[in-house]
């Protein structure tokens, strides 16, 4: 029975051992292929840690078994050849039992019997020692297998005393002097680390977000003090307010310094938390090598697992949820996808099949691809299974395209296997994979070519991974574009622009690339031909290139892209949103959306256009609601200056402007507009929070066609007024 204090340590110990066991498994698989000294040393260190840690917790049986594993592997150390297959098998099997025993101890459930593992190790150790070093790699482990089948280990070996075993281990250890020394240092490291619950870390992440908001509020307070100072200065009583102003200036400086310090703390906490919350994808992918190896042994197939992009770091929770689907896909690739070596050879393929797992992160999206060069999905088998299982009516089945038939493998209960094996045939598989991926807000696609192989692509949001983003400005909006899509940036020159009938093209590196205006694509303004010196970004996505005109390139940032809230998540234009250093949110635009522009070009043609000018977000939203309901396409501006800038390049059927705006009010905007010849006849409606005759008269004298109070802008009133003023203008014309 365990000491109660030790018992409390068990859950943490299980996690630690799981990581070590995964590392040992990876080493064993690689050492079976070829000898590598550093790997061998790490393997030995891992086994030694298992032994030592188990002993520390009073788990003597497990410590003893780990010791036996060491005994089995250490004699092969100096041989510089691959580990014998039988030894690898025995060690992997024992390691599984070791972990099962540990988990059962923690769960206080029935403990697996360790005696078969001891017997297996003894048998294989003798077999390996009997083989000459040079032939060790070629050893097929017959002796070990025979003993495993039932021959008991010699009695004298059974009774080998602990002291003898220690002595034997000591013989092997001089060569391990370095690893052991490192291992002794390890407990200190472990003592300096904690295992923390996910929800505590997540809550800490939220607290950091809140701290960032506090930092924002500090900035707001500093601006308020600044405003108070300028108001005091405007009063002109400088002498009388000198003391107060000096005090306020001190507060302003202090707030500024505090804000910067808070910003630094937030940034540093975020970096640290990122390191805590994420792990490289390879931690999930590497153990798959073991699955492939074991399945190949069972099925007589030959396969190599290749991992590309294993260094991408992801949210640990996402990684944990991906483990199951990935295991399933890789096992399926061996079991269903790859052919037997002779069949492959007959088809002109290499005897050894290849399974590739490729990981790529684009912005806040993760793309995971599991492909094999096997047989491909067998359409006739899929049809037959669908018919047998009555998944789809026969007539419908016959009319299905190959792509539609591929989708059937994701149906509940679907299996092409007639018999249930350890690996497949239960009809519990791809539907579960799909459900698990959907639970992560992702989706799975399949592509298959008969005789050439199958590829599964998993696409899912990767919330915590940070990505390089280029921040640009378009009008008053700042937007982010994922850096991997940005090929280059340049300044527009009229000599390099070609005006085609319906589009503008950029001559770039002997290619003509269509130019798109980001503002127009986002319906912020009408398309504009880039002026000399305007920044252009050459983007490439999904094989298409465009030159994107923006107003300013703000700079590149490493940002954590988070999903948008559900109310706006369906917008195809955005990947998500990220927080800039000052705390404001920036929308991240999807490069593939930007490059697929043709449909959207047509969307705005043929409708009447309105420009709404208001410094209130709500007012702009309400005017837009009313006008769009009346069939108008609406652009907005938040100030008179911005509206005049838009009117310079675009024409509108009506302008609806607020009166009370900072800098330039609605009267001034109307006067400015009327001074321009091209805007003389544009209908203008002024909207005011106050319903005063004075405002009405001033509006009329500045050239406005209509006047509405904000309370008049109830449903129908605005659109009726717009139609009335347009009709009046047309009547005049």
């Amino acid at each position, binding site marked *: 029975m365990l000491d109660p204090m030790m018992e409390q340590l068990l859950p943490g110990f299980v996690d630690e051992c799981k990581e070590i066991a995964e590392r040992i498994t990876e080493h064993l698989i690689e050492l079976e292929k070829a000898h590598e000294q550093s790997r061998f040393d790490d393997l030995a260190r891992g086994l030694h840690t298992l032994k030592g840690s188990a002993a520390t917790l009073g788990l003597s049986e497990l410590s003893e078994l780990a010791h036996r594993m060491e005994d089995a592997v250490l004699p092969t150390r100096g041989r510089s050849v691959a580990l014998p297959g039988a030894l690898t098998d025995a060690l992997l099997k024992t390691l599984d039992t070791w972990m099962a025993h540990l988990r059962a101890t923690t769960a206080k459930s029935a403990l697996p019997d360790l005696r078969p593992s001891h017997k297996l190790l003894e048998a294989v150790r003798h077999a390996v020692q009997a083989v000459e070093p040079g032939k060790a790699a070629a050893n097929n482990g017959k002796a070990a297998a025979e003993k495993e089948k039932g021959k008991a280990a010699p009695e004298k070996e059974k009774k080998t005393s602990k002291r003898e075993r220690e002595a034997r281990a000591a013989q092997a250890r001089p060569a391990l002097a370095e690893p052991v020394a490192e291992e002794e240092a390890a407990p200190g490291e472990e003592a300096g680390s904690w295992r923390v619950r996910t929800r505590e870390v997540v809550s800490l*992440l*939220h*607290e*950091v*977000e*809140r701290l*960032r*908001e506090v930092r*924002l509020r500090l900035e*707001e307070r500093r601006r308020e003090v600044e405003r108070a100072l300028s108001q005091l200065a405007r009063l002109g009583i400088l002498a009388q307010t000198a003391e107060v102003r000096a005090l306020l200036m001190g507060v302003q400086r202090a707030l500024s310094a505090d804000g910067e310090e808070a910003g630094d703390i937030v940034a540093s906490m975020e970096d640290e938390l990122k390191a805590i919350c994420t792990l490289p994808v390879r931690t999930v992918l590497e153990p798959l090598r073991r699955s492939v190896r074991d399945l190949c042994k069972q099925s007589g197939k030959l396969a190599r697992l290749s991992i590309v992009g294993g260094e991408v770091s992801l949210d640990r929770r996402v990684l944990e949820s991906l483990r199951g689907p990935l295991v399933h896909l890789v096992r399926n690739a061996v079991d269903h996808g790859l052919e037997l070596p002779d069949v492959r050879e007959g088809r002109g393929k290499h005897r050894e099949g290849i399974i590739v797992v490729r990981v790529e992160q684009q912005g806040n999206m993760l793309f995971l691809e599991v492909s094999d060069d096997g047989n491909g999905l067998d359409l006739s088998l899929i049809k037959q299974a669908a018919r047998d299982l009555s998944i789809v009516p026969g007539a419908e089945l016959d009319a299905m395209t190959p792509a539609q038939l591929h989708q059937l493998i994701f149906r509940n209960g679907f299996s092409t296997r007639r018999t249930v094996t350890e690996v497949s045939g239960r009809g519990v598989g791809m539907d579960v994979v799909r459900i698990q991926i959907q639970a992560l807000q992702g989706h799975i696609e399949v592509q298959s070519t008969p005789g050439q192989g199958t590829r599964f692509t998993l696409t899912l949001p990767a919330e915590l991974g940070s990505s390089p983003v280029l921040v640009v400005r378009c009008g008053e*909006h700042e937007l982010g574009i994922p850096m991997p899509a940005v090929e280059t940036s340049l300044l527009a020159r009229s000599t390099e622009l070609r005006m085609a009938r319906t589009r503008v093209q950029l001559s770039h590196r002997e290619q003509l690339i269509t130019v798109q205006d980001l503002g127009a694509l*986002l*319906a*912020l303004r009408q398309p504009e031909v880039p002026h000399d010196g305007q920044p252009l970004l050459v983007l490439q996505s999904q094989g298409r290139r465009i030159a994107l005109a923006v107003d300013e390139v703000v700079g590149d940032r490493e940002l954590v892209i*988070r*999903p*948008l*809230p*559900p*109310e*706006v998540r*369906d*917008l195809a*234009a*955005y990947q998500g*949103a990220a*927080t800039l250093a000052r*705390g*404001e*949110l*920036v*929308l991240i635009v999807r490069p593939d959306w930007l490059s697929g522009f043709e449909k959207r070009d047509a969307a705005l043609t043929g409708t009447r256009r309105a420009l709404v000018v*208001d410094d*209130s*977000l*709500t*007012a702009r*939203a*309400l005017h*837009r*609601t*009313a006008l*769009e*309901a009346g069939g108008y396409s609406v652009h907005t501006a938040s100030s008179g200056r911005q509206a005049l800038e838009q009117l310079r390049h675009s024409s509108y059927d009506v302008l609806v402007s607020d009166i009370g705006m900072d800098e330039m009010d609605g009267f001034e905007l109307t006067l400015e507009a009327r001074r321009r010849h091209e805007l003389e006849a544009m209908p203008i409606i002024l909207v005011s*929070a106050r319903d005063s005759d004075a405002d009405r008269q001033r509006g009329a004298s500045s050239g406005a066609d209509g006047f509405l109070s*904000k*309370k*008049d*802008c*109830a*449903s*129908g*009133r605005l659109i009726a007024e717009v139609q009335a003023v347009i009709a009046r203008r047309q009547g005049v014309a």
Partner: protein
Amino acid sequence: MKLEPRFPDHTTQEDRELLERRAARVREKPRATEEESVLWAAEFPVGEDSYALPLDTLRAAVPLKMVTPVPLSPPHVIGILRFQGQILTAMSLSSLLGGRGWREDPAVLLVVDPGLGGRLLALDCERIPKPVPLPHALVEEARARSTGAVAEVTLPGLHQVNLLDLRRLMDRRESEKRDA
């Protein structure tokens, strides 16, 4: 027999009135009973009308600042903002209600919990709401009559408060989106 209050001989008329008012207050129902029979709501104007939200759905009232507009979003979406580590959608209540007009530009965002699994939303508001007690009986009566997201509660004095059911309001928006 009606009991007449007895006052000391030297009390003035003013003192008597004060004492009577105090007595009347004491005679009122205990406060706990009153709280049990009312629904506390946050009342605010939308244009010419008076609207209210159950107070327990209100999480915060924050200034309408630092909202990032979302181009191409539906017209009722004002933008997105950060609140306590979450990214929330700020929506125009007037637009959600079908464009009721407004008197002054909203300067406040109400952060509310519409009961969608802890997901919060922000709704704009012309003024900071004031807490009001709505008699449960009247609320239930109004809710029974209502088929939509608004229950019209008529208070004594014929003052009408439109009590919002945020969940229904959002569900309606979702179904409109699906239909579209």
